[in-house]
């Protein structure tokens, strides 16, 4: 067993513990954040250190270290770092438990990273739960009614969905006698199982379970409520990291275990249809939202839909398209959330209407937010454009013209509500002239996200 391959996650957990410990001794709580970030950086260094072509496995083939997983690790680490940076102001809301907050973020990041780099169902389940349980706690971390409600909803629905997921895993395991993805693939390839209806059931249950993570219709209902109620940095975290890891798992499971041509047509079609519905529903409902976090919740449903287009386009292009899309989506969404965090902190409101004239009170923040939203629409020069292009490119290659057309039309719809925010910020008169300062960590975050 090569523990070296696990070094990023191990170091992360160690830092998590360290942060909890430090919390007891350190007065200046910002130190905790910096330690956490340092831990993330270290972890990232480890991860990058593992970068090599080919695939390395450890723990009896359960841990897969390849460029795919390292990509996700770095992505998730980056997101976590940005979230922590963005939280530094925000955590002042709860003077106690800051250490736990950071630790939970770190541990969930560890879980998400593991999701992206395991090749075995049990590990996938456990790491998924690691991430989820940390997130349940984080979502209800504010302990005000809204936050608790969000936590409860997230937890109960999450638990139900993981039961469903488990049922699916059980069926897959029962049909193939193994939980290793590669082996599942080879059993399936050998024939017999392929025609078993139970395999189909297993597949659909898996889709349902993972669909919950990525917020695909019809497993998306929790999203707006939880996004609205959760502490904003955690919403940001949920909307990108959790989703990214979800897609990483789906890519792994479906490409490796169920990648055979006989099967991929089936699940690709399911993903295509669900994707189409997700983006349409997400975008259409987002139009009528007045709370910006909620709106971004619906938008994240829609984005899950776009990414599922990439899933439906089985193949290399689809895969790389998803990766690229996730990266840009992560940056844009985090950037948007960071701006929202700062602005909302100041004006104590998440209502879009209260953002009027923000461009004058907080020019930089508004610019970043606008830019991120534009990236989410997918208009050049923002990176979101190239990302969408990639995904749709892949879909066209797979002959999914109808899906692409639905997708691009959805971008049109999405422009409507994203631009509404931009409009409010840039056109209206400010409610007060008091400028909204952006702290240094925020500035760093913004600078980073703007690269997207």
């Amino acid at each position, binding site marked *: 067993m090569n523990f070296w391959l696990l070094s990023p996650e191990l170091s992360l957990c160690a830092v998590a513990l360290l942060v909890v410990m430090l919390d007891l001794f350190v007065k200046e709580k910002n130190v905790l954040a910096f330690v956490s970030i340092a831990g993330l950086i270290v972890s990232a260094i480890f991860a990058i250190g593992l970068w090599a072509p080919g695939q390395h496995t450890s723990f009896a083939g359960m841990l897969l270290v390849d460029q795919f997983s390292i990509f996700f690790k770095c992505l998730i680490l980056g997101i976590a770092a940005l979230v922590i940076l963005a939280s530094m102001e925000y955590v002042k809301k709860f003077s106690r438990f800051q250490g736990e907050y950071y630790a939970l973020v770190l541990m969930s990041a560890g879980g998400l990273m593991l999701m992206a780099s395991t090749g075995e169902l049990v590990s996938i389940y456990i790491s998924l739960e690691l991430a989820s349980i940390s997130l349940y706690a984080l979502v209800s971390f504010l302990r005000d009614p809204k936050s608790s409600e969000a936590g409860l909803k997230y937890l109960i629905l999450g638990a139900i969905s993981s039961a469903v997921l488990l049922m699916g895993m059980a069926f897959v395991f029962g049909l193939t006698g193994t939980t290793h993805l590669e082996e599942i693939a080879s059993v399936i390839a050998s024939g017999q199982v392929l025609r078993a209806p139970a395999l189909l059931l297993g597949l659909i249950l898996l889709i349902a379970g993972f669909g919950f993570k990525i917020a695909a219709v019809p497993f998306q*209902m929790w999203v707006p409520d939880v996004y609205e109620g959760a502490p904003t940095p955690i919403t940001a975290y949920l909307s990108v990291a959790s989703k990214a890891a979800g897609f990483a798992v789906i890519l792994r499971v479906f490409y490796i275990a169920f990648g055979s041509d006989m099967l991929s047509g089936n699940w690709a079609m399911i993903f295509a249809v669900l994707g189409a519905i997700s983006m349409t529903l997400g975008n259409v409902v987002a139009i009528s939202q007045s709370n910006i976090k909620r709106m971004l919740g619906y938008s994240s449903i829609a984005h899950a839909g776009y990414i599922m287009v990439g899933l439906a386009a089985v193949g290399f292009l689809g895969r790389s398209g998803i990766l690229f899309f996730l990266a840009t989506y992560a940056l844009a969404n985090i950037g948007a959330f960071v701006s929202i965090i700062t602005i909302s902190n100041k004006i104590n409101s998440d209502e879009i209407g209260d953002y009027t004239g923000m461009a004058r009170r907080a020019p930089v923040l508004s610019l970043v937010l606008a830019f991120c939203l534009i990236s989410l629409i997918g208009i050049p020069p923002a990176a979101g454009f190239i990302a969408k292009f990639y995904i749709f490119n892949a879909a066209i290659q797979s002959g999914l013209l109808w899906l692409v057309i639905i997708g691009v039309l959805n971008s049109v719809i999405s422009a409507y509500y994203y631009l509404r925010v931009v409009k409010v910020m840039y056109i209206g008169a400010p409610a007060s002239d008091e400028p909204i300062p952006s702290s240094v960590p925020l500035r760093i975050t913004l600078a980073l996200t703007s690269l997207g």
Partner: protein
Amino acid sequence: MPGVVLLAIFLLPLFSFLFISLVLRPFFNNSPKLSGYTIIGCLAAALGLSIWVMMSAEQFPIEIATEWAVVGDFTINLGFVADRLTAMMLIVVTGISLLVQIYSQGYMHGDSGYHRYFANMSLFTMSMLGLVLASNLMLVYVFWEGVGLGSYLLIGFWFHKPSAAAAAKKAFIVTRFGDFGFLVGILILYFTSNPHTFNIAELNHMAITGVIGGTALTVGALGLFSGAVGKSAQFPLHTWLPDAMEGPTPVSSLIHAATMVAAGVYLVARTLPIFASSETAAMTVAIIGGFTAIFAASMGLVMNDIKRVLAYSTVSQLGYMMLGLGSVGVAVAYGHLTYDEGIAFGIAVGIFHLFTHAFFKCLLFLGAGSVNHSTGTFDMRFMGGLRKYMPWTFGLFLLGSLSLAGIWPLAGFWSKDMIVLSAWEHAPQILFWFALITVFMTAFYMFRVIFMTFFGEYRGGEPGHGHGDEHDHGTPHESPLVMVFPMFMLGIMALVSGWSIWWGGGAKFLGEGEYYHLHAAHWHGHGFFDVFTHAGQDPMPLIALLVALGGIFLAYAIYQAKWISAEALGRAFKPVHTLLSRKYYMDELYEDIIVRGLLQNGLFRLVELMDKYVVEGVVNGVGKLTTFSGSIIRRAQTGQLQLYGMVMALGVVVIMAVFLAWK
């Protein structure tokens, strides 16, 4: 004569235009006289050059050309050509324009838009010269629009008067209807010619040799004619011309009597071989011309505005010219005449009248302007007795009227009778009778004008009358020399221009063929009495003369001798009188019913509504639908977490079911 002379004739007024608008207007705004001198100088030079061109007749045709646009094998050559027709038109245009500019020095004295006036005049003259010089249809079209622009600007010269602004607009739009056909005609002719060309001479040649023919030629020719109808104010596009009298009087005399309105006639004459190759086209020209002649004259009978009488008279006379051209065209089409003789004859007939008409009609307008200058009104009911106050004007106006009425030996007699004759010989009978009746009417309304204006007692003008050019007027007085002099010159031309026929100048110059002896020479080129001596052989001139005298007599009877009461007559024929003075309700038909009713409040409004409610409605509807469905769907998000769970579970079942069904 080098070809560059043609260019120079064209460029002189252009220079004048540019110099006035770019140098004088911005920098010498306080010395208005300068612009008058500029244009007079330029036009005098142009007239000189034009005479040189005319002298060089034996070198004709003289051509210069350049490539204007080349796209693949599509080439538009821009070129000028000088032939006899052109040469004659050049003289008319430069000569009359020069005289009118001199007149304008007096007439426009003190007007605040002095520079603008002469700049526009230069622009117009330039375009008109370009029009007559152009060797191909494209270029004709270019200047065709150019003179239209000049006309537009000058009719609307007093743009602050709503009536003038409206008249300018009307003139442009109505003629543009004709131009639409013109443009289509050009395209048809271009694409039926082989090889494709815009060159008029080549097109004519192709028409004669039958390269172009059939329906295409007919439609093409009718297209050209529609341009001519618009520009020459023929029925049914004549309505703009009377309104165009809102412009300053010199403008009316130059543009709307002598030159621009004649452009349509000129165009038909230029392309006569094309018309002559199609029976339908030629007949259409003849019929429209003949009908317009009588139609317009009838309205002239009842107008009280002196300029409007003249305007209808102009329309009527232009109809004459068309009739002349058309009837000869018919003759050729039926084979009564060969192309060569027919075309030469036709051009001679039509253009000769154009030539003479230009002078005397211009004279009449200037006379009217002069009257206005002193009385401040154009309404004849407020004039009277001016003979005493304005002897020169009276004399010259009488001269012009006699000429127009076609009284021997004035110019109108010669040229008009050629048309009547050719209508008699070649056109359907009815057109001849139209022509003849028109002669009567013409004489009548002109002398109605004479009697109402110059005889009887002065009725005091009318201060504050809407039409008045802005001048002081107390008691009527003779106009200054600068105005009388051009009238005098024109009077001379009105007297003598017809005589050119004696020495074989005018008409022969145009006709240039041996055919001449067959049809006209036996009675032209002789003395006064010859007309009577040859009457038995060819009674037409005599008949026409008698008819004209009849018209004069009737006018005398009613308006001077008052043997017949005008009022009683008006009452007796009230419906007719109303119909005529309302101009057959054509304006109402066009403006109220067609433009406002059918188009603006009908079709266009329909389009607007459709745009607003259907097209836009669909667009907004889609948007609204999206938003609305969003607000509906969000209601599903009730906040009940168990509902969410149920949707998830149900989702699994539905996916499974749909999937199985799909498989």
